[in-house]
C-alpha cells in the first residue's frame, strides 16, 4: 500500500526552466550576428529597382551610403518633392559629397582604403540628372568603386 501512496505524492514535477535563458541567448546571438545597427534614419523614400547581375557587398566598414530619393511625407512641406541627396542622416548637396567621403575614409585603416565602395541607394522613380551629378562628384573625389543598390529580380 505505502508504495502506491508514495507515487501519488510525487505527482507534480516542475519543468526546469533553467535552460530557457540559454535558448533565448542563442536566439539573441543569432540576431546580433545576422543584423546590423540601423545607423541613419531615412529622410527620403528609397525603393531600389530590381536587377539580376547582383554582387553582394561585404565588409560593412568599407561601405558608405548615399541615398537619393524624394523627401518622405513629413519633410515634403519644407523640402518639396524634388529628388534630394541624403548623406548620413541629413539632406545634403552635391558639394558635400567629397567631405562626406573623406570623413568615412578617415575611419578606415590606411591599407584598406583602396577597397572602399560607395553604395548608391537610389529610388526607382528618380531621373538620371541628379544621379549623373553624384557620379561626377564621386569621380572627382576619386571614389570609383560604386554599387547601384538593387533587389534581386524574381523571374
Amino acid at each position, binding site marked *: 500500500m505505502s508504495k502506491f501512496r508514495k507515487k501519488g505524492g510525487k505527482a507534480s514535477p516542475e519543468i526546469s526552466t533553467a535552460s530557457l535563458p540559454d535558448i533565448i541567448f542563442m536566439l*539573441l546571438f543569432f540576431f546580433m550576428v545576422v543584423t546590423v*545597427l540601423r545607423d541613419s534614419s531615412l529622410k527620403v523614400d528609397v525603393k531600389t529597382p530590381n536587377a539580376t*547581375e547582383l554582387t553582394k557587398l561585404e565588409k560593412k566598414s568599407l561601405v558608405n551610403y548615399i541615398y537619393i530619393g524624394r523627401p518622405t511625407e513629413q519633410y515634403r512641406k519644407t523640402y518639396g518633392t524634388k529628388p534630394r541627396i541624403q548623406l548620413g542622416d541629413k539632406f545634403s548637396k552635391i558639394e558635400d559629397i567629397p567631405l562626406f567621403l573623406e570623413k568615412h575614409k578617415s575611419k578606415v585603416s590606411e591599407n584598406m582604403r583602396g577597397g572602399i565602395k560607395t*553604395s548608391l541607394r537610389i529610388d526607382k522613380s528618380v531621373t538620371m540628372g541628379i544621379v*549623373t551629378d553624384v557620379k561626377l562628384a564621386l*569621380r572627382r573625389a576619386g571614389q570609383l568603386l560604386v*554599387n*547601384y543598390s*538593387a533587389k*534581386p529580380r524574381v523571374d
Partner: protein
Amino acid sequence: MARTSTRDRMKNEINAGSMADIAFLLLIFFLVTTTIVEDKGVLVKLPPWSEEPPDITKLKTRNVYSVLVNADDQLLVRGEEMKVSELRDNAKIFIKNPQKLENMAENPKKAIISMKNDRGTKYETYLEVYNELKAAYNELRDEEANAKHGKDYDYCTKDQRTAIRMAIPLVISEAEPTSFGEEN
C-alpha cells in the same frame, strides 16, 4: 527549531527564472533596432576623372555597340529601336559575332559598348539597361567557361577566370548625358 542548517543554506541557488526575461528584453531590443542585411547591387567601376577632354581615338564603327536611352525611356541601339528584353541577346550576338558578320565586333576584345542617356531618363530604366548589358557579358563568360573548362565562370579557378576576363573584357563606356528632359 526551524533554523536551517549550514548544509541546507549551501544548497540555495540563485533563481534563474528571471534571466529569461532579461534575455528577452535584449532580444526584442535587437529585433527593433536592426534590419536584416540585404545590401546587394550592380557593382560598377567608374572611369577616373581627368580635367582634359578624352582624346578621341578612332574606333571602327563595327566595333561600337551604341545604346541610347532617351527621356521617354526608349532605346535606340545602333540606330534602331529596341525593347529592353531583346537587348541582352542582341548584345551577345554583337560581341561574339558567331557568323563573322562585317558589321559586328571583330572579336570580343575589340567590342565596345557605348551607353548614353538623357538627364530625364528614369533611373530604373538606366539600371535595367546596364543590368542587361552586364548580363550579356556574364552569360558570354559563362559560355566560354563551360566550353573550355566544363563549369560556370564562378566555379573556375582564379587563373582560369583571369584568362576568360582577358578574352572577354567588359567595356561599357558612358558618354556625357544629353539634357533634353530634365525634371523640374
